């Protein structure tokens, strides 16, 4: 029951993926803006977080997003050679290679994490990529880590409850 409460649903009860997007200020973020200004329609499931460079993306952010309830994570940076800080996106590429492999080993399906190079003028690319990840994650279903954590920890709450019950019994026994 509780586990379900964490899953985002539309009015008709259909699962709506929650995607956290980390976009570089100089390219993909601007492209997303452009897509907005040009009134391109794309899935409303992304929450965009602006970074000054994709190289600022600490793998801890991706872990945290999933742990807090994201169903997918999308990272957008400048094309190779175009990073404003020269090397930032190469660092991202290296980190993502290892992080993706590690997430797979941790049971997170590959389609939930995606790195894309999208320049400031490629508004249509933002539209395509966002729609695509939303559909792929929708097909996978909810990840719902907060719900999973709750489920796993129910077993220790049980004992906690028992211990408290015992304590109360003892306390009552003393009164008599």
């Amino acid at each position, binding site marked *: 029951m509780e586990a379900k409460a964490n899953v985002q649903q539309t009015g008709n009860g259909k699962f709506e993926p929650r995607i956290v997007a980390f976009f570089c200020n100089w390219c993909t973020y601007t492209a997303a803006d452009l897509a907005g200004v040009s009134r391109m329609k794309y899935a409303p499931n992304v929450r965009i977080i602006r970074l000054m460079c994709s190289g600022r993306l600490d793998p801890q952010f991706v872990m945290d997003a999933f742990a807090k309830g994201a169903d997918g994570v999308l990272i957008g940076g400048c094309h190779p050679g175009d990073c404003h800080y020269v090397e930032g996106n190469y660092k991202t590429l290296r980190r993502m290679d290892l992080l993706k*492999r590690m997430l797979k080993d941790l049971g997170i399906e590959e389609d939930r994490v995606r790195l894309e190079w999208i320049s400031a003028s490629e508004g249509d690319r933002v539209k395509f990529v966002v729609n695509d990840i939303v559909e792929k994650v929708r097909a996978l279903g909810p990840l719902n880590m907060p719900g999973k954590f709750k489920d796993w920890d129910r077993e220790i709450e049980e004992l906690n409850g028992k211990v408290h019950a015992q304590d109360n019994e003892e306390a009552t026994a003393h009164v008599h």
Partner: protein
Amino acid sequence: MSTKPKIAFYWCASCGGCEESVVDLAEDILMVLDAVDIVLWPVALDFKKKDVEAMPDKSIVATLLNGAIRSSEQEEMARLLRRKSQYLIAYGSCAHTGGIPALANQFSREQIMKYVYEDAPTVANENKTRPVTEFKDNGRTATLPEFRKVVRALDQVVEVDYYIPGCPPTSKLLKEAVLALLSGKLPPKGSVLAPDIALCEQCPRVDSKPQDLSLTEFKRPHQVIIDPDKCLLAQGLACMGPATRGGCEARCITGNMPCTGCFGPTSRIRDHGAKILSYMASTAAGKDDKEIEKILAGIPDPVGTFYRYGLAKCMLRGKVTSHE
């Protein structure tokens, strides 16, 4: 009755190495024994659970508990000792961050039971008998604790006041902690009782660690003859020093082996494995997928490498599909 402060030692899912580190205090153990009364220490002294139960709440000054929490019995003892102690100290990597036992969070209970009682090459168990929590025989009932879904660090079960890190902790840290307890000069609650700086800063080889590493290959210790003077990471070995807390006296480095991260992260890091992954991957050379993949293939098991002692504290806590 003695008025000396009461101290308890307890162990849960651990290997016994932490107990060894207490004994390693050598003659200093006499100093400790002089200053405190040990009221529980299953590995060395014959006290029982009921002795602890009979004590008033908070009457133990400090319990040093080592080992991760896997069974309902361990949980129960952790709760009991929490209630009876003023300070509960997570002692060693397993209590601190899950330790080696927490690597089991990559597998489901069923996978573990099946392997241990059926598939392991050393097992002869034709009837495939498995342990049960309750067994009736001749009108008597024998019980066993529950085997939990996941391995937990101590603070994922009860409140913890301090942490002494390490696999095992050094005798020096233990001695300092006991002295701090006796003098009442304790740091803020929740502190890790070890320096809050990265191991690299204390490493005797740090001068040979280049600013820009640009590694073209990662190797494992058994694949190379290790130069005893040069920074291990610069030699392509996955040394976790850059994201691991110092205070261990660089034990592994001195033994010519890379740091595997047993002291856990510094306080500014929220996920030890993800942070060291970030550092290590970015030291790789290579500018396209293929090249990068080839270099990083030298780290074949990122979970086992980066969370060797800390999977319980990984933000995802282990393989997310294994614990339904």
